[in-house]
């Protein structure tokens, strides 16, 4: 994102599955433009934001990686089967502008190397 170049490790999830808190690379139509997002919930989890705090399955999640806390509010929603829920770490922008949400696990093509 933001026009930066990142090296992506495409084999990262060959023998393992993405886990909560991983930063993952999500493809669009191809692999030239990818989105780097934080995976916050797995399939069938229930995601919610209350005054900027993340709740997964009603349990508050400590997000040490979030630099600029937000006041986001998002009603509970269930992650569909074979989907993951991803959010960016930059929560200083309004929730309406930020690109986040659930996406098919097939779109996760790896993880950034650094």
């Amino acid at each position: 994102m933001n026009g930066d170049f990142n090296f992506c490790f495409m084999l990262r999830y060959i023998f393992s599955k993405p886990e909560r808190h991983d930063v993952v690379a999500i493809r669009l139509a191809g692999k030239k433009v990818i989105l780097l997002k934080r995976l916050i919930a797995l399939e069938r989890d229930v995601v919610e934001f209350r005054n900027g705090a993340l709740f997964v399955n009603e349990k508050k999640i400590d997000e040490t990686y979030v630099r600029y806390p937000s006041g986001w509010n998002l009603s509970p929603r269930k992650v569909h089967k074979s989907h993951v829920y991803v959010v960016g770490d930059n929560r200083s922008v309004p929730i309406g502008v930020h690109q986040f949400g659930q996406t098919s696990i097939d779109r996760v093509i790896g993880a950034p190397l650094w």
Partner: protein
Amino acid sequence: MVKAKYSIVAGGVLVAGVIAFFIFSQSEEAKVKKQFEFLAEKIGKTPEESQIIAAAKANRIREVFTETCKIHAPAYSFSRDISSDELPTLVLSARSQCSEISLKLCDFVIDFPEKGTALVNLTASMESKLTTGEFIEEHHELKCKLQKIEDIWRLKEIEMVEVLKK
């Protein structure tokens, strides 16, 4: 010896013919891509662009659309059929809010399910600077349907794929 000479010449002519064929005959895929390049160029804007150029560009955008084009963008709660007559006004109005626009299209996947129809999946990256000075960068996956009318590929449907669904 003479036979070998003729063979070399014939081979050379054949290779030249094949190269010329690929250079001068555009494949259907290339023709489809060319329409998208045309669209990206006409949407693009520089700070120096005059109003006359802006109007001309908005008018020419019609050339890559069918009489009616269905645009579906759930992320923006936008879904409607737009006639080619409406297009220039809409484009002009949208572009007037920006002082600079750059649209890059990549990762084309082109399929021809039947004669005269093309289905295209691509990534659109748009960077724009609003007249207020705000900088916006967006990346979207688009699914498009094109129809070949009078030997020209024209956009009939554009759908913005919801890669991330809140």
